[in-house]
C-alpha cells in the first residue's frame, strides 16, 4: 500500500489522541458521520486547551497533541 503522507500521519495521530483522551468511539456510529464526530472531539480538545475552536486540525492543535502528557482522559466518562 502507499506510504502515508504527512496529512494522513497527522490524522492518525489525532484519531489516536481523541480516542484515548476524549473518548471518541472507533468505527461507524449509526447516523453520525465519523468525520462529524471527529470534528466535535477536536473542538472539545481545542476548548479544553484554550486554543482557537475551529474543529480543524491546525498546526497549533497538532502541536499540543504531540506533547508528552498524562494518560488519564481529559473528559469525564
Amino acid at each position: 500500500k502507499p506510504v502515508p503522507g504527512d496529512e494522513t500521519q497527522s490524522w492518525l495521530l489525532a484519531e489516536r489522541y481523541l480516542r484515548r483522551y476524549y473518548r471518541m468511539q472507533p468505527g461507524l456510529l449509526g447516523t453520525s458521520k465519523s468525520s462529524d464526530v471527529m470534528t466535535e472531539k477536536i473542538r472539545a480538545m481545542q476548548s479544553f486547551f484554550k486554543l482557537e475552536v475551529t474543529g480543524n486540525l491546525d498546526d497549533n492543535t497538532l502541536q499540543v497533541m504531540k506533547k508528552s502528557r498524562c494518560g488519564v482522559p481529559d473528559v469525564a466518562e
Partner: protein
Amino acid sequence: YNLFPRKLKWQNTLVTFRITNYTPDLKKEDVDKAIHNALMTWSAVTPLKFKRLHEGIADIMISFGRLEHGDHNPFDGPEGLLAHAYPPGEGLGGDTHFDEDETWTKDSHAYNLFLVAAHEFGHALGMGHSNDPGSLMYPVYSYSHGFPLSEDDIKGIQELYGPNPDHEKVKPKPEAPDKCDPELSIDAVTELRGEKLIFKDRYFWRVHPQFTEPELTLIQSTWPQLPKKVNAAYENPEKDIVIIFSGIRMWALNGYTLVPGYPKYIHRLGFPKSVRKIDAAVHIYDTGKTLFFTDEDYWSYNEQTGTMDPGYPKSIMDGFPGMQERDGDEVDEVDAATYKNGYLYLYHENLQYEYSYNKRKVVRITRTNDLLNC
C-alpha cells in the same frame, strides 16, 4: 480544576500506598524519596495522611510497567503517554502506573519522577485535569522548581477533603491570569516573527494574526532557562532576535531557540550600574532605535552602533505627553511597549496609551486587554 464525576474521593483520611517495583533509571532511595515527596505535596494542603505498606493490597498501588501492563490500558513506548492513575475506589482505584519506557530522573532532564508522581497522585485522590497551564493537574508535562501546586490545584483538592488542620505553610503558584479581566496589566510584550508574545507573571500569551484566540503557556515550559518572570522584551527584526529582560540580565531568542552565550548583563547596553531592571523595551524599525523605559525615564539605543544616544535618559512624562491615569494624575512609568506604523503603544496598569509620532502626543487610550482580542 476538575474533579471526577460524583466527586470520587477516599472516605478515610488515612490512605495507604505500596511501591510494588522500581525503575532502573534511579536508585531505589531516589524513587522512594520522589514518591514520598509527591504524597507530602498533597498532605501539606489537606487532612490526608499516607501510610506505606510493604506487602498486601494498599489503596494506591504504585508500579512501573511498559506497553500492556495488566490493566488493558497500555502505554505507548517512549514519549507520548508518561503515566496514568485511577480515581479513588476498590481494586484498581487509586493505582498509579508509570511508563518504564520513559527515562525517569530527579532533575530537569527527561521526565522528573517527583512531578509526574505528584500529578498522578492528584488523580489517585480524586482530581481530574485542569486547563490552567500553570496547575500541576494540567495534562501536559512541564518542569518547574519549588512547591508544585498552584492555587487552582489547592482549591480543587480542598473541595474534596478540606484544608490542612495544622495550616502548614505552603507557597502555591498563583492561578493563570484572565485575559478578559478589565484590570489586567502586563509585564512585557514583543513581536516574534509575526506573532505577538504578551508576558504576565509566569505565563505568556501567543497571539497569531490568523487566530482570534490567544494561546496561554508557561514561560518555563517553552524556555526552561528563562526566569519565571519577564520585565521587558523587544524584537529586532533586522537581526531576527528577541531580547528578553529580567532584572539585570537579558537573554536572546532566535525564533524559539535561546541564543548561546546568554544571559548577559543589561549594563553592556550602556546603562549605568544604578539601573537594576528594564520596565519596557520597544524597537522602532523606522529609525533603527530601541527605546528602553526604566522607572520614570526612557533611553534611546542605536542598534547599529550598539550605543546609547546622547542626551538620554529623558523623562517619560516630557517625552510622551498625554499619558494620564483616570484620576488625572500623570503616568510616569511604563509596564510594556510596542510600535506599529508610526504609533507607539505604551502600557501602564490596565490601560494602553496610543502615542502618535506625527502628532507628538497620546491620541487614544484603551484597555490593555485589547491586545488579547478581549
